[in-house]
């Protein structure tokens, strides 16, 4: 029997229709309102926000999705990168 291990969930859950509502030119406030506060913000790359979602069940492969939002110098939304596919409903 495998031993009891806690599953480890990390990062923001982003749904597909939230990503679809993103429009270039949005300011940081609007993006935060739509996608929520990013849990990963790199100190040396203030121009990008990373929405990383991962779920490691106690036994099994770690599932991960990532969306990166890039802002231009004036803080307007430039583009969105990352594996943009609908997030499966959580467990």
């Amino acid at each position, binding site marked *: 029997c495998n031993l*009891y291990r806690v599953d480890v*969930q990390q990062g923001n859950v982003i749904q597909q229709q939230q990503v679809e509502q993103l429009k270039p030119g949005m300011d940081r406030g609007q993006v935060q309102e739509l996608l929520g506060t990013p849990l990963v913000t790199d100190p040396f790359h203030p121009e990008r926000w990373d929405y990383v979602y991962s779920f490691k069940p106690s036994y099994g492969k770690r599932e991960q999705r990532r969306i990166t939002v890039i802002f231009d110098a004036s803080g307007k939304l430039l583009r969105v990168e990352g594996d943009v596919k609908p997030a499966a409903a959580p467990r």
Partner: protein
Amino acid sequence: FEPFTVSDIQIRGLEQTDPGTVYNYLPIKTGTLLTEEGARAAIKALYDTGFFEDVQLGREGDRLVVTVRERPTIAEISLNGVKAFPQDKLKESLKDIGLVERRVFDPATLDQIVTELERQYYGMGYYAAKIKVEVERLERNRVRIRIDVDEGQPAKIQQVNVVGNRAFPRQTLIGLFSLGKTGAFSTFTKNDQYSRQKLLGDLEKLRSYYMDRGYLDFDIESTQVTVTPDRRHVFITVNVKEGARYRVKSVSLSGQTDVPATELRKLITVQPGALFSRREVTESANAIADRLGDVGYAFANVNPVPAVDKDKHEVSFDFQVSQGRRVYVRRINVSGNNRTRDYVIRREFRQMEGAWYDASKIRRSKERVNRLGYFDEVNLETPAVPDASDQVDINVNVTERSTGQFMLGVGYSNAQGVLFNGSVTQRNFMGKGQILSASVDVSDLVKSFNLSFTEPYFTPDGISLGGDIYRTDTNTQRLIIAQYRQVTSGAAVRVGLPITEHVNDIVRLGYENTSLSLVEESPQRYKDFVATFGDNVSSVKASNTLVYDSRDSIIYPTKGWNNRLITEGTLPGGDLRYYRVELQGQYYRPITRSLTGFINAEYGFVNGYSGKGVPFFQNFYLGGPNSVRGYRTFSLGPLDPVDNVSLGGTRKVQLNTELLFPVPGMADSKSFRGSIFFDAGWVYDDKYLPSFSELRKSTGIGFHWISPLGPLRFSLAYPIGVKPGDRKEPFQFTIGTNF
């Protein structure tokens, strides 16, 4: 008053305060224009410091003259006649209001105190309380304050009456109340002393009682509290209007949620057609909110909207769910731990940082930190994170308790006579959460040495590793067991494997050597044993203990199970051949906020295998403070026909039922517990369970104190169904031995 530019400022009337302080708080500077409005602000500023009784501004040419009269400081406060409140708590609240020695005396605080004291007394039913305050002026502008209180007798409740009840008899309804006439336990429960909070609580219980049985329109129209002119008797009248009994017509669920609606729908226990029950509706709503709370929706809101049909007396509920934003945990801040290391607490947490908020994981985490047994209190708060509406922090504040027991001393226990022992047990060694204990016991019966160490988190996931080394030299002349001397020594390694959140499996492998020396009086059976096995036997023992432990705390459990299945045996190749199986079930259940019910049931049997018998020192022995109270230790079970000495048995059955209650006066401390118990047990050899009459039973009261010296247990038991030859021992106590 016309404005003028201030050329100079002079302060008069100062006896004590140094002028520098006044200048600092005075918002006027020399050379500035002083307007009327500025003057008024200055006076207010000086008053606000609280140092002055009176402030006057005057003018001599261009010089501003500030005349002040300082408030006296308090030299001494005496508080007499207060019995209903703990004195230090009162001194504390005086301090908060600013009435403290060496502080400036403000008469307004005095009235505040008297009003507050009176309000407190009347809130507790001390209607005849009289409070007298004296302020005595001393030299050098100081005062002595005397507060004399004559509490008088608290008014006792003479009658609680409910009017307008049809569906339920008055006695049942009054039975719900915590307030009531003076009864047997009133000196402890103080149920006959009127208090507003208790009445409000009782009214809520009455409302729930009706609302949980279909009475949707139930209403408490009015309540009256009347008192007799001599203020000694209180009557409480509650006028109710029951209204009709409602049935549930239909139940629906609306609102967009992440968790599939079908799953949430199953959480609703309200059945169409059944009687309306507010508790069921609330519990269903909470179940949905909790389920959403487990996937990050900490602020989910579930609102059961009723649609009432007054004529058909039917109600339908639409559970409207608004799950709100998914919330994440940013940081978990641990504080108050100045001995336990941060990771020892953090590793008990099921909730991670940077993860969505999971309500049951957080609840479970608090429980696990509590179960460490290192803290008196574990407080959890989840404050929102500023300018991030979807993030919260978790602040864990712990109050540490001493987990070390260094004990050198003389103990006495009925079984072992005078006990000299020294032990060092530290359940939080170096704050690393490791358990280390070394103990030496010397007494007439036993000379033992024991060293054990456990690292609960040998792996990050909580696989524990531990070891024991022990040597026990038992010499039983003083006891009534058959006379023999036994020296057992051994060492073992333990591995603890977490199976589920509450189930743990401990595998133990050890080597044990026992040497026996018998005397003339030793019973024949012992001599036969030595004849067949020899007087020095050693074996490798393997044991597996499956533990299901869901108690809310180890030191002061109030709810949960603690079940064990122990299977142990010697491996072939050693001298001994036996295996033992023991089943233990413990169940704690809160009865009221302070009363806890406790049941402990044990059954065990030990058999030899491949033709070898059970070594007699591996028999079960029952009786004594830790098993069936009221009987001498190890005195239960079959007796040697020759010298009437207890031989123990290969089968054991034991049952303890207890009612645990906090000791009056020390209700909030977690180290004292009183109990009323009923014990029963017997050891025997044949296959069938003993009949009820055969079981030795007792009942009595006990007292358990986790003292700095270690757990102390006292019990006064009255044996029932005593058979000839039983050895009774009503008063028993043990010091320092763990239960």
